[in-house]
C-alpha cells in the first residue's frame, strides 16, 4: 500500500541507483531533512540543544563511524572512547594553537589525525581477529586515556588536567563557549552529521564498502576474489576513526565545552557506542541513528516522565531508568537480533503488502 514500486518509473541509471529508490521513502527523507534544517533551528532552545539534539547528533556520528568498522568490515573495536579522545584533544590543540582558523577545518583535521591514529591501532587487525582484536583495541582505549592524562602538553599544562574550549566562531557566528546560540551549535553539528551520513552511505554501497563486507563475510574468500585485506581493513579503520574523531571533537568543543579524559572518554563510552550500533543494527546507517536516539533520548524521556510528570524521587527514577533501558535492550535483541534497523525493514516490507498480505 505505502511502499509501492508500482507506478514509480525510472528511466536513467542514476535514478535506479539512488539511495531511496522508492518515492515514498525518498519524500520521507526529504521531509526529515526539511524539518531538521529549516524548522528546528528556528524553534530550538538551550534545553533542546544541550540535552537532546547535540548528544544525539554527535553520538550518531560516532555510531556511524563504529558501524563502518564493526558492522561493515567485521572488525570488533572497543577503542571508540579512546579515539573520541584523540579527536577531542586534537581539536583542542588545534583550536588553541591556531585561533584564527575556522572551526570546520579544525574539526576535519581532528578527524584526520584520529584516522591516522586509528590506522596505527588497526595494524594488529591483519594478524588477529574477533575477540583477540577486541582486546587489542581495548588496549588502545586504555593507552590513549593514560596518554592524555600523563603528558601535560596535551592539556596545555593546565593545573587540573581539564581541557576547556575557548570561544571560536565560524563566519562570525560564535559556536563554542558559553555564548554560543543554541541554533548555531545545532546547525554546526547537523552539517557534520549529514555530511558523515551521506559520505558513509555512499562509501558503503560503492566498491570500498563491498570490499569491507567481503572481508566481514569471509576474509579468505575475499582474498581469493582479489580483495586486498591490508587495504580493506586499514581503510575501514581510517574511515571509521575519521568519523569517531569528528564526533569526539564536536563532543568536546561544541557539546560539553570542558572535558576530562578519564571521565568523558572512558571505557563506558566505548561500550555505549557499541551498544548503540548493536541495538540500532549492525551494517546500517539508519541503524546508527536509531541506536543513538534510543540510548540518548530514552533516558531523558524516562527522567522527564518519572520526575517531572509523576513526581517520583530522583534516585528511584534513576534506578528505574537503568532497569527499563536494560530490559528494553534485552527485549529488543530477543525480538529482533538484528536491531531496530531490521525491525524497520520488516515493517516496510509488511507495509508494502498491506492490506493484502498474500
Amino acid at each position, binding site marked *: 500500500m505505502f511502499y509501492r514500486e508500482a507506478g514509480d518509473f525510472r528511466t536513467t541509471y542514476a535514478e535506479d541507483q539512488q539511495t531511496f529508490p522508492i518515492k515514498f521513502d525518498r519524500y520521507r527523507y526529504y521531509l526529515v531533512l526539511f524539518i531538521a534544517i529549516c524548522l528546528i533551528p528556528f524553534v530550538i532552545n538551550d534545553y533542546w540543544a544541550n540535552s537532546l539534539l547535540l548528544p544525539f547528533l554527535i553520538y550518531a556520528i560516532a555510531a556511524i563511524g563504529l558501524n563502518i568498522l564493526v558492522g561493515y568490515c567485521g572488525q570488533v573495536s572497543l577503542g571508540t572512547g579512546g579515539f573520541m579522545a584523540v579527536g577531542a584533544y586534537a581539536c583542542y590543540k588545534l583550536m588553541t594553537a591556531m585561533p584564527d582558523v575556522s572551526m570546520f577545518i579544525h574539526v576535519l583535521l581532528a578527524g584526520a589525525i584520529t584516522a591516522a591514529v586509528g590506522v596505527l591501532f588497526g595494524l594488529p587487525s591483519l594478524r588477529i581477529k574477533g575477540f583477540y582484536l577486541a582486546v587489542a583495541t581495548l588496549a588502545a582505549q586504555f593507552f590513549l586515556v593514560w596518554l592524555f592524562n600523563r603528558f601535560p602538553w596535551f592539556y596545555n599544562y593546565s593545573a*587540573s588536567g581539564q581541557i576547556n574550549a575557548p570561544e571560536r566562531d565560524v563566519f562570525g557566528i560564535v559556536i563554542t563557549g558559553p555564548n554560543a546560540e543554541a541554533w548555531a551549535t545545532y546547525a554546526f553539528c547537523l552539517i557534520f552529521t549529514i555530511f558523515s551520513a551521506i559520505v558513509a552511505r555512499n562509501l558503503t554501497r560503492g566498491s570500498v564498502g563491498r570490499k569491507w563486507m567481503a572481508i566481514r563475510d569471509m576474509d579468505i574468500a575475499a582474498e581469493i576474489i582479489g580483495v586486498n585485506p591490508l587495504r580493506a581493513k586499514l581503510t575501514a579503520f581510517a574511515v571509521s576513526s575519521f568519523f569517531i574523531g569528528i564526533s569526539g571533537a564536536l563532543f568536546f568543543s561544541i557539546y560539553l565545552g570542558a572535558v576530562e579524559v578519564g571521565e568523558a572518554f*572512558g571505557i563506558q563510552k566505548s561500550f555505549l557506542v557499541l551498544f548503540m550500533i548493536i541495538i540500532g543494527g549492525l551494517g546500517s546507517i539508519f541503524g546508527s541513528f536509531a541506536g543513538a536516539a534510543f540510548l540518548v533520548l530514552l533516558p531523558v524521556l524516562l527522567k522527564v516522565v518519572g520526575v517531572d510528570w509523576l513526581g517520583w524521587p530522583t534516585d528511584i527514577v*534513576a534506578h528505574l531508568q537503568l532497569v527499563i533501558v536494560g530490559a528494553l535492550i534485552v527485549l529488543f535483541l530477543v525480538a529482533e537480533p538484528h536491531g531496530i534497523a531490521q525491525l524497520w525493514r520488516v515493517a516496510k516490507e509488511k507495509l508494502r503488502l498491506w492490506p493484502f498480505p498474500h
Partner: protein
Amino acid sequence: MTYKLGTLAVAGLMAASPVMADLVFPSLSYRTGPYAAGGIPFADGYADYFTMLNERDGGIGGVKTSVPECETAYNTEKGVECYESLKDSGGLVYQPLSTGITYQLIPKTTADDIPMHTMGYGRTSAANGAVFTHTFNYPANYWNGASGAINYLLAENGGDLNGKKISLVYHNSAYGKEPIRTLQELSKKHGFEFTEVPVDHPGQEQKSQWLQIRRDKPDYVIMYGWGVMNQVAVQEAANIRFPMENFIGIWWSGSENDVLAAGAAADGYKALTFHGVGSDFPVFDDIQTYVVDKGLAAGAGDQIGTVLYNRGLYAAMLAAEAAKTAQEIHGTADITPAMMRDGMEGLKITEEKMTELGLPNFGPTFDVSCSNHGGTGLVGVTQWDATAKEWKLISDFAPTDMDVIGPLIEEDSAAYAAENNIEPSCG
C-alpha cells in the same frame, strides 16, 4: 528519522515545566552510582534546611523556598542536562557537588547570569571574583585544604618537615589534581619530599598504589578521594598497617561512610574540615521539630548529623543567608539569580549571625567581596574514633598559608582570563 523527531517534540514539551513563584534552590544531587554514599547525605542536608525554613519561618523573607532535585550520578553529561532542564525554573544558585560539572558550568552560569557556589570543591582559582564573577567557593578551597594539612603536620613536627616524605593519593581527575601545584610549592618551601599516587575512577582497585606506598614508606599520606575510593583506601592502608594517625584525608574523604567499612582498623584516621561535626547544635532541634517529626525529611531521613549531611546543611544555610542579603540589598523579597549573585558577593558571616541561626562555632566567620570569593580558608582537623563511631574535632580552625596560595590563585585565574578574553575588574 521522523519518529525520532516526534519523540523529541514530546520530550521538549514536557521539559517546559511551569514557572514557580518560589525561591528556587536547585539541587544537582547524586543518589546513584559510585559516589552516591557522598551525594545522598549532602542532598538530604541541603533539602532539609530549606524545608525547615519553610515550616518554621515561612521561607526566606516571607517567600517559600523550593528545592527541585535532578540526578546527575556525578556524570558531567547528565549534569549539563540537569542544568539546562532546571534553568527555566529560575534557580537562584547552583551547587553541583562535582568538580567536573563545575568546570562545565563556570562559563555557562557566567553567560546566563546565574551564580554558582562550589563550597570546598571546584576550580580553586574561582576565589578571584574579579575573573570568576559568578562562581563562589567560600569558605575554603582545595588549596587551603592542602596547606591546612601541611600546617597541621608542621605543628605536629615542631615546625619542621625537612626530609620527611609525604605522598598524595588522589582521584585521577580535575578534582584530585587540584592540590598538586600547591603541595609542590609547599614542598619547596618546607623541604619535604612529595610524591603523587594517582587512583583512577572509580577507585575500587588500589592494590598497586598501596604497594607503592608500602615500598616508598612515606611518613604521611594525604588523600584527595571521593566516593567508593575512600573506603577502599582506608581499608588498604589498614591492610599494609600504615599508621592511621599519619593518614589525612581532605574533607571529601572524611565522612562516616569512608571509615565504617574498615571497622576498628580505621581508628585514628584524620580528615580536614571547614565546619563543625556532630549534631550538638541548636539548629538540629528545629530540624527534628519542623522536618523529621512532620515526616518531611528528605531521602530516608537517616543521615542527620553525619559529616556530609552537616555540609549540605551548611551549604543551604549559606545560600539562605546570601538570599536574605540579596533581599536586603535590592529591597525585594522576590529575587532573581542576578540579585542572588550580589547577595553572595555581599555575604557577611559573623559569629552573632551563626549563633542566631542555631549554629554557634559551626564554621568560620568571613566576608565575601568581589576580590575574594573564597572566604578566609580556615581549616580544622577531625579524627575518627572507631569505638564511639564518631568524628572529633582535634584542632581549631586555623588559617592557611596564603603567601603560597594567593600567588597561585592569581596565576591560575590570570591564565583563565587570558584564555577566555576576560578583563578582570571589580567595580
